[in-house]
């Protein structure tokens, strides 16, 4: 029906969108039902001469029904969410592609391990705000912050995680389609918050290799 979320290019995005739409349709249906009934009842049972209000204190069966049904719906929704949550948050798949992203007022510092694949060596390479990654590969990112709390938000990858000073937080994603995707900061971080924006460039594997070779060459 309504597909107004940003394009999903993530391996786990479909699962999140699925949950989102389930909740969206359930609440949407409830909203429409309640609104229609309200208007209907307002008209049907409006004040009329000589008609008395029906006297009732309630109906226990009815009361239990409309408490139990939503409770079941919500508890099953929680179970569904919990399994997706665990998959995305608790169990990051292994990968040989690692990055460090350090947030600061008001930039994203992206640290590549360089050709040797290890951090803390002289060939580490740092850029500001632009992340280049290959498509169809698990990317593991260690999030840090230098000053205040920022939030690493990739709407197209359905990924959002706060970067908290004093903590190293692991996030991961796997992009399924090459392109250029927005990376805004999603936690108020000061007067430059609205301008704190980076880009994620997802390349085809050979293009990524080309970019990496050029970049490492430049550095030397």
């Amino acid at each position, binding site marked *: 029906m309504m597909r107004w979320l940003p394009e999903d290019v993530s391996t786990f995005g479909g699962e999140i969108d699925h949950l989102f739409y389930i909740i969206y349709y359930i609440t949407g249906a409830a909203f429409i039902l309640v609104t229609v009934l309200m208007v209907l009842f307002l008209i049907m049972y409006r004040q009329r001469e000589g008609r008395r209000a029906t006297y009732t204190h309630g109906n226990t069966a009815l009361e239990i029904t409309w408490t139990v049904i939503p409770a079941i719906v919500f508890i099953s929704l929680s179970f569904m969410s919990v399994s997706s949550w665990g998959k995305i948050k608790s169990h990051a798949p292994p990968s040989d592609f690692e990055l460090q992203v350090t947030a600061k007022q008001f930039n994203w510092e992206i640290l590549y391990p360089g050709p040797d694949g290890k951090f803390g060596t002289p060939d580490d390479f740092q850029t500001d705000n632009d992340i280049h990654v290959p498509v169809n590969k698990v990317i593991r990112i260690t999030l840090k912050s230098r000053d205040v709390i920022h939030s690493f938000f990739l709407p197209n990858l359905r990924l959002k995680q706060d970067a908290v000073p004093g903590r190293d937080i692991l996030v991961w994603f796997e992009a399924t389609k090459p392109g250029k995707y927005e990376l805004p900061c999603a936690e*108020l971080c000061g007067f430059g918050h609205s301008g704190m924006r980076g880009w994620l460039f997802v390349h085809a594997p050979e293009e990524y290799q080309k970019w990496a070779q050029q970049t490492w060459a430049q550095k030397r």
Partner: protein
Amino acid sequence: MSDSAAITAAHAVHAHHEELGFWRTYVFSTDHKMIGRQFLFLGLFMLVIGGLLAMTMRWELAWPETAVPGLGWIPEPYAYGGIIPPQTYNAFFTMHATIMIFFVVMPIMVGGFGNFLIPLMIGAGDMAFPKLNLLSFWTGLVSGIVMLAGFFVPGGPAASGWTAYAPLSAVATFTGVEWGQHLWIISLIILGASSLMGSINYITTIVNMRAPGMTYFRMPLVIWSLFITAILLLLALPVLTAALAMLLFDRMFGTSFFLPQGGGEPLLWQHLFWFFGHPEVYVLVLPAMGVTSDILSTFSRKPIFGYHAMAFSMIAIAFLSWVVWGHHMFISGMNPLLGTAFMMSAGDAMGRVHSFYRSHAFRSRLRLELSDRRAERHLHGLHAGRYLHPRHLLHRRALPLRRRRHHLRALRRGLLLVSQDVRPDDE
């Protein structure tokens, strides 16, 4: 005492009241009705300020970096010929949210309706502690003044959002706001004291001063909602106050409760804040639910549909609001396992809240009869000869007075519908 004597006595009491003079009647009043009105007007005044701030923000969103009409007088660097820079925008939305939550919804719904309605609807003469009540309002007013003073100090008001996430709020250089944030913290600490006095008063009054026959499950739902709100405030606000004090110490005295470089933990602020913040959500909404329930049932001239269910679901919400704070923090960096636990609890609580809404919605709509002025006329016509009117104000379920038929008339007259002053045993 005969009716005429009672009325004479009432007049005498009223005459006595009028002797209090202007200051004791309108300014430093201990009368719950006047204090309720004071809270109402404080809330309405702040509503205008908070609303104007919101409109400025909306203008900035609709036409970014254009001058907001009428704001040319704001000096640089807070605005440039009416154009609102990012720093001022942040300050405005921080103050908008803070004002709307702490100085509009809370004073009007809790302070205003609470003070005005609780004694009248449970048949008490006044609040349990009238002077504490007076103090509660004036402390609240001081708190409001301190909050607004932020606009007039160098650096402008607080600009770290109403949630004031540390470390942004804990170090002045991160926002460039020095005293504005101090005042924000101090103001909320004072407001905490004010709300605490209010909630102690509400709870004591509702527990101890209900009129004979007014059992807990005969109280109108609005009283139930205010009762639960007061309990939530009593337990939640000290947590916020403690967190605010820690934040103030971090800012002013070099402690590191929330600063990682000194061994502190930024997430501690979020845990403390949301431990207060989630019950606060229900503080804001429960009184409105109570009011809506009573108004709808009164004007559809039916008893509350499922009175007990409503009361119990409000109690359930209150309990659950203490275990779901983590759902404000899913992406905050807390342990994912905690996230799982909170997701379950939040899901469960949401279920309950939702069913509350649902039952609320259906209940009020079953065979609803619209009542407007026509209906009022209809009513007046009915009770011209007999004493039927109270039946529509007192829902039978909330006050099933039939069980004590001999008390019926005295209660109806003396309890809710006739001024407290008629009852001589009040004082």
